[in-house]
């Protein structure tokens, strides 16, 4: 039995994309587009579903073949078209809840296209995960988003 503990941390990642804010927003809002860039490594078996509206839910499950299942269960709390998306989400490893987070994606016009600022306020539970690993993972997702946007152009 793991002793109960919580660790609280906030991180901010800023990216500049050579794509218009509306195009960046669409990569989050359109389920088919989001499924293309949001998720684990290609070799994972995965599933994704989302209902992009305030109060709507999103789930993404995946993991290495035969390995432990990573599950993200999220809910949308605020959506301003082309500008802001606020989502809370829980991460489970198998049956164990390892974190609860509040993530804000802000999109603003920039000289180059769009500046994206992602802020995640997180609670990491019982020593299973930490903010540094989560920030690394969030950065990887934003790399995948950029690759998707570039390929879509």
């Amino acid at each position, binding site marked *: 039995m793991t002793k109960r503990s*919580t660790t609280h941390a*906030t991180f901010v990642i800023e990216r500049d994309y050579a794509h218009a804010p509306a195009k960046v927003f669409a990569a989050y809002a359109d389920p088919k587009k989001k499924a293309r860039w949001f998720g684990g490594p290609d070799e994972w078996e995965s599933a994704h579903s989302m209902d992009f509206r305030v109060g709507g839910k999103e789930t993404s499950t995946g993991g290495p073949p035969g390995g432990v299942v990573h599950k993200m269960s999220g809910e949308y*709390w*605020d959506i301003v078209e082309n500008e*802001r998306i606020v989502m*809370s989400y829980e991460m489970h490893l198998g049956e164990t*809840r390892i974190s*609860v987070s509040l993530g804000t994606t*802000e999109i603003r016009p920039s000289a180059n296209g769009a500046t994206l600022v992602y802020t995640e*306020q997180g609670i990491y539970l019982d020593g299973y995960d930490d903010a540094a690993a989560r920030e690394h993972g969030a950065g990887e997702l934003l790399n995948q988003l950029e690759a998707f946007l570039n390929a879509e152009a």
Partner: protein
Amino acid sequence: MTTTTHGSFVIERRYDASPRRVFAAWADPAAKRAWFAEGEGWDIRSFELDFREGGTEKSRFRVTGPSNPFPPETTFGNETVFNEIVDNERIIFTYSMDRDGARFSVSLASVELRPDGSGTRLIFTEHATFFEGGDGIAMRESGWRELLDKLDEHLAAAA
């Protein structure tokens, strides 16, 4: 154009009541309504609590009294989703605040309870995101300090 700000705060309290009693004040709808919603200066229009993981709490209220800075018919809404509940130990929830239907904040909060002698140490942590027209982190922390005082009065009165 939207504006978004982020902030966090932590409040620690010691209550002269067991973790089981402090937890019950969050879990029981009548008890929670008594210290969290009711009070002088608050006109409660509705309060519903479904205290389970994935369950919700929803309340609507008006602020009354001479110090109210808002038009008298201004209605506030609070919607909560419980992410995690560990009996007598931990509650994690996400909540939003609306003013006349316009969302002005979303927060992630945890309540941790630890035995402390014959009483309980409570650690309340909130991570908040404020939108245009939001109250901001200082006012939010001050609001929760008042609520945690009211919880103390509720526990003392019910003892």
